[in-house]
């Protein structure tokens, strides 16, 4: 079924997926850039955002409330995780940080599995965005179109926080040189906590926004985490614009390859990552900085 409308519709799918990946990846990348910690529980955060939203939705029936609750809950979880565990790992080797966040991710997934079982849950899109929209030459699910817009707004918000606020300036300075920021009398550790919260919130927000597109299971974050890694490697670790560019590239590669044969989607994604690693080892928009 490779024809013009199908191709365009896959392009849109890729755009929606890419936008989501961009949002999740920017959460991962600003946490890594600022704190130097790669959060392997990030996929689980994404999943928990979906479930927190699902619970809120089943009690209130309001999608907006679900989005707010999902984001805030995951942000709180991120802050708690940073306060209780991660902050003890800033001065330990990268390997230990990877191990502990990996373990936490498994715990999160298993707790959710315990409460909600492995059965998939469904969050319907809000009434306003249900159905399909005619784009003239093809019909496309309204909600997916909306996802692109919603995520674009969220990314814009993240951009404003990062590039237009005092906090954002500190965060960007911290990415460059956190010791220097610390010695300027700014409490870097409080900033770290906030950044971890914001990064987690990005994942949680994406999780609930994505819930109406794909049904919720406890394992929904695992694949996303892998895709996020590829995005970050392609875009460059610690780079916010890189995460967006990488996200869009990865989203389109997955969607367009799936049109021909879904089995090759990851192969193509991996091929693209390899190509970037060979040609630009630090990612498309990454700089030669922290390893």
């Amino acid at each position, binding site marked *: 079924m490779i024809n013009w409308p199908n191709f365009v519709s896959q392009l849109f799918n890729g755009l929606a997926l890419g936008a989501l990946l961009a949002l999740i990846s920017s959460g991962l990348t600003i946490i*890594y850039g600022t704190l130097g910690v*790669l959060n392997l529980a990030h996929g689980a955060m994404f999943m928990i955002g979906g479930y927190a939203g699902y619970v809120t939705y089943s009690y209130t029936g309001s999608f907006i409330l679900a989005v707010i609750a999902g984001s805030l809950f995951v942000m709180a979880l991120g802050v708690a995780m940073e306060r209780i*565990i991660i902050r*003890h790992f800033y001065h*330990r080797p*990268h*390997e*230990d940080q*990877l*191990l*502990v966040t*990996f*373990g*936490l991710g*498994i*715990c999160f997934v*298993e*707790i959710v*599995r*315990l409460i909600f079982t*492995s059965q998939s849950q469904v969050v319907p899109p809000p009434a306003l965005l249900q159905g399909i929209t005619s784009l003239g030459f093809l019909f496309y699910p309204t909600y997916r179109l909306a996802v692109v817009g919603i995520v674009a707004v969220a990314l814009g918000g993240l951009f404003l926080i990062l590039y237009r606020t005092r906090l954002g300036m500190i965060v960007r300075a911290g990415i460059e040189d956190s010791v220097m920021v610390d010695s300027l009398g700014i409490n870097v550790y409080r900033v770290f906590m906030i950044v971890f919260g914001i990064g987690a919130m990005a994942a949680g927000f994406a999780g609930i926004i994505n819930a109406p597109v794909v049904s919720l299971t406890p394992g929904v974050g*695992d*694949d996303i*985490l*892998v895709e996020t*890694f*590829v995005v*970050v*490697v392609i875009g460059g*670790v610690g780079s916010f614009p890189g995460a967006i560019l990488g996200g869009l590239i990865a989203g389109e590669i997955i969607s367009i390859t799936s049109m021909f*044969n*879904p*089995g*090759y*989607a*990851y*192969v193509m*994604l*991996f091929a693209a*990552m*390899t190509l970037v*690693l*060979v040609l630009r*080892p630090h990612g498309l928009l990454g700089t030669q900085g922290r*390893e």
Partner: protein
Amino acid sequence: MLKQRPYVIEFLTAAGLVVAPFVLPWLGFAPNTVNRILVWGLFGLGFDILFGFTGLLSFGQSAFYGTGGFVAAYLLTRAGFPYVVLALVIGMIAAAATGYLIGLIALRRTGIYFAMITVAIAEVFFFVEFNPLSDFTGGENGLPGVPTPSFNLGFTTLHFTTGWSLYQFLALCYFIGVVIALRIVRSPVGAVFSAIRDNPLRATAVGHNIHGYKLTAFVIAAAYAGFAGGLLGVLQAFMPPDAFTFDTSGQLVMQTAIGGRGTLFGPLVGAAVWLSLQDFLQAALGLGAAWKLVLGVVFVLLVCFLRRGIIGGLADLCDLLTGRRDAKEPEESEPEAIAVATEPHAAAAAAPAPARPRPEGSPSGPILQAKGLTKRYGGLLANSDIDFTVNHGELRGIIGPNGAGKSTFFKMLTCEVHPTSGTILFDGRDITGMNVTDVCQLGLTKSYQVNQLFAGLTVRENLVIAALSGLRGKFKLDLFRSIDSIPGLSERVQHTLELVNLTSRPDTPVSELAYGEKRRLEIGLALATSPSLLLLDEPLAGMSPRERVETVKLLKSISQGRTMIIIDHDMDALFELAERVTVLQEGRVLVEGTPEEIKNNSTVQEAYLGGVHGVLAA
């Protein structure tokens, strides 16, 4: 703990494996559980070499486990290949070859990048197994009917079928795996592995091609994984597709961390804990699916509080109980400190400066010639058009105010950074654009301004790593050679220990050394590569006045028969040591001459007293 008397560990392993079938049933272990533990343990041997010894944390080992397993299982089922062991070996080779290709990509980056890339690779293999290659791998059905091994010995045929019968075969495989792993860990390659884990930058600088060694560790881990994957198929009489899942990689990582990384037996212990807890929680407590949560919590707690895993924790407990660590260290270090303070340095006393005798017939003329050396960082000109020549046997000093570009200049000479323009000739050879490893192999190395030691190792192990590069070249695959059998190694290490006055503490871990001792070891690391030209970047930095006196003596004794260039801010010390001094200022050579000339040079005085700017302003 791996360096005790020869063959003790091998013997204990063999004894343990022989005794296990008689003891473990009493502890409630089913034979099938023990066999699974052995397969995980073998899988983990290679992974521990990669992660525990070389410091490369891969989350993608399932790719090689699955590859080896499916190649062997395919040969034994669909292809009708009759020889089980040979099929396992072919599977192992296939996994190793895959590991080589993947390693070429994944090892382009280190740290978290490496971890992320390996995750992505594992996921790709999983999808490839399920879709494009499902005709060969059976897709989600896997490959059933994998036979168990049997050996025809002529007079009788040995069959290893299930349970304790198959255990014998698996135990033999595990034992061979342990013997090989121990050989690798104790070989020179193993020493370089731990150097890479502790300080890759310095491992490169003392002349080891660390990329080659990392790739070696990666291939070794892949080979172990491939063989273990084949055994999994034999054990279950079925090659399950979930061997390829990310969960497999994750479980391996967690088991290794639980058992204790860098111990070789950690993965086995971790697997035993993991599998028995899983059985216990599921069967005895009826927790059902929650077992994984319990194990996850256990794992997180272990990573938080018991960094070195169960084996490491037990070792610490042993030390604590026997009181070995606490009792021994202070006794050892105190007389040494007195010795440093009081004993005059024999070699230095014998050779009064500055007239250093030069051996007859040694080469003369320039050893190093830099022409028009310029380094530009964006708009900043760090070094500009430096011409610099040092002759054989010379002891040259470089001084200059902060920011004069001294360290950048050294970095260019050792090829850590490449000049924007200009050329460097070392021993008549153009080394511009070479890498730091090759330059070290040619005989040019430096000691660092900020200590770059292998912090997790002892003084002797540090020097061994540096000495190995000179004796073995930058890359050599002598995986099965004992490190003690390398001719000249122990002599060179002993000689270096004497030169830097650390003979009393060869087996002290670097982390327990005093600052002055670390500083001397830093110089020792450079010396142990036996350079023909030695650069010292601020060897006196951060030392107390007394330590300075000692170190100056030390430098004098080292300089016998060597060519050295020393950067330092301590001008008194430098004027006492050096025959000629070059003054750098604002990235240029200001003046060059004997210490006397420099002392009396008015431009130098102005540079240091800020007079130049005063004159310009006036």
